């Protein structure tokens, strides 16, 4: 089975700190593979010959090498200054063009959502541009046979088992298991593996379809939620114990 796995590099949200002006402190913030996408890679590698694809800056190459170490056979980086500041629609359009250049596939695997934006839109957008059936909220792939993929979906009100005709696109949630750690040999192989880089011209995309110009949405302004917690530091155990005791006696907000 030929599989494309679409992944995204995100800032490690565990590390984010904010400045007084509501901008992110970028220094020292590490980039990681989006957590759901780690499971997308695992799913793709388990089912067949997986190619990892991302749209991102040149540094995203590192993430793609990790995807190769995790078992992907190939990696493609869609990178161009013109892709910058794309919203989900322009991103999906770019990914769709990138995947079409790679030829036929049986399955596209995406993560359900990314931890930075959490829109969960790029997967379904991409499925539309590729005219593929989509299955979102996939918790587990049950089987692939006779041209169909059967999966378990985890929804708020319960669990669905659905069957989709291949080729299809699935969006996977984080699994309940720790993803496999690559062996040292895999990491060495990944360092020597080839990451194919494609720009807007390679994909035959015009400026009006991609990046900032191809994005119908834009952020007009942003603001931080103010927390109602007073952030008072205490110096002694007695004060700390008193604060705990006081809170214990208090009522719970409904």
């Amino acid at each position, binding site marked *: 089975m030929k599989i494309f796995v679409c992944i995204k590099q995100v800032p490690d*949200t*565990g*590390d*984010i700190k904010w400045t007084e002006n*509501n901008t992110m402190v970028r220094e020292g913030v590490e980039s990681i593979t989006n957590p759901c996408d780690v499971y997308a890679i695992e799913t793709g590698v388990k089912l067949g010959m997986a190619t990892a694809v991302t749209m991102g800056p040149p540094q995203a190459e590192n993430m793609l090498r990790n995807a190769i170490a995790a078992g992907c056979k190939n990696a493609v980086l869609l990178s161009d200054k013109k892709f910058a*500041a794309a919203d989900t629609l322009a991103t*999906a359009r770019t990914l769709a063009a990138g995947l079409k250049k790679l030829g036929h596939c049986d399955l596209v695997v995406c993560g359900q959502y990314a*931890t*930075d*934006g*959490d*829109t969960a*839109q*790029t*997967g*379904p*957008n991409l499925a*539309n541009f590729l005219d593929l059936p*989509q*299955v*979102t*909220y996939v918790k587990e792939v049950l089987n692939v046979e006779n041209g169909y993929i059967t999966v378990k979906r985890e929804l*708020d*009100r*319960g*669990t669905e*088992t*659905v*069957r989709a005709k291949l080729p299809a696109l699935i969006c996977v949630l984080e699994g309940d298991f*720790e993803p496999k750690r690559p062996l040292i040999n895999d990491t060495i192989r990944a360092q020597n593996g080839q990451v194919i880089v494609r720009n807007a011209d390679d994909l035959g995309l015009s400026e009006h379809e991609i990046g*900032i*110009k191809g*994005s*119908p*949405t*834009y*952020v*007009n*302004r*942003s*603001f*931080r*939620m103010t*927390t109602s*917690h007073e*952030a*008072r*530091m*205490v110096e002694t*155990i*007695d004060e700390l*114990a008193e*604060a*705990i*005791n006081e*809170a*214990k006696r*208090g*009522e*719970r907000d409904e």
Partner: protein
Amino acid sequence: MRLNGGSAMNSMQTSGNGVLVIAEEFMLAELACAANGIANTEPVCAMVFGEPKLVTGFDKVFVVEKLTEYNTDLYTAAALDLIKEIQPSIVLIGATNQGRDLAPRIASALNTGLTADCTDLTLSKHGLLEATRPTFGGQLMAVIICKTKPQMATVRPGVFKPAESDKLPEIIYRDAPYVHPRVELLDFSEQPRKVNELETAEIIVTGGAGIGADGFRLLEEFAAALGAKVGATRGAVHTGLASAAQQIGQTGLTVSPKLYIACGVSGSVQHIVGMCGSKKIVAINIDPDAPIFQNCDVGYVGDIFEVIPQLMEKFCI
């Protein structure tokens, strides 16, 4: 998303054909409220699937009776058919599992923008929808404008109060265009979500990955002394110190006890969003620069292995 765009606003007209709501029954009343708030004098319509629902607050309710069971392909085709006919200027969809599956499919088919999971909707002075949504796990709110029509947004459940209205809708039955569904539902098992004891706990003591197994043993004792339950960060769960059911944060539980004691928790954004609704947050951490100290009520810099035994002595007296 891009910052400070807005040069190419010429494609946008302020007058339009009202607001269309596409939602499951339980969200219709709240979306009626959201839609009426941004409709000016234009019509507010709803699209429902299956049995017609009697909901007030809409001018028209379009009913596609024969599509009772959700299917991405079928619902998308039916929605596109209606949108092309009535040309709404704004489309609102409930941000449920179903809505988040459907909305991006519709938006991309229309080549228009979609703002996900909104918590507030307003109209700009030019009559454009300004959709507010949380990003970075709720730490930053972004106000997003879509410059193509229809402007689309999914709306988080429970944000808008169900509308009280005397407006009775005209019910219009519609056929759905035939498309061949490519995904088939084989089985559904309903699981009323299990209530986790942390969600109802009055006091929660949470540990981070850095405190190790000894730290979690200490937290168990501390929790027993306080009558509390023990929670954990994502890091602690992923390193095997605690179970997945104990995870509090963006990808775990959202809790709001009267007292939350964070022990050796650095206070990542993804953790904070799961516990910032707690009435009182007490943080103990050895690192004076830990972000948790900006998100607590009372903070104490110290080693939990020294602090907690001293606290327990005080509570045992």
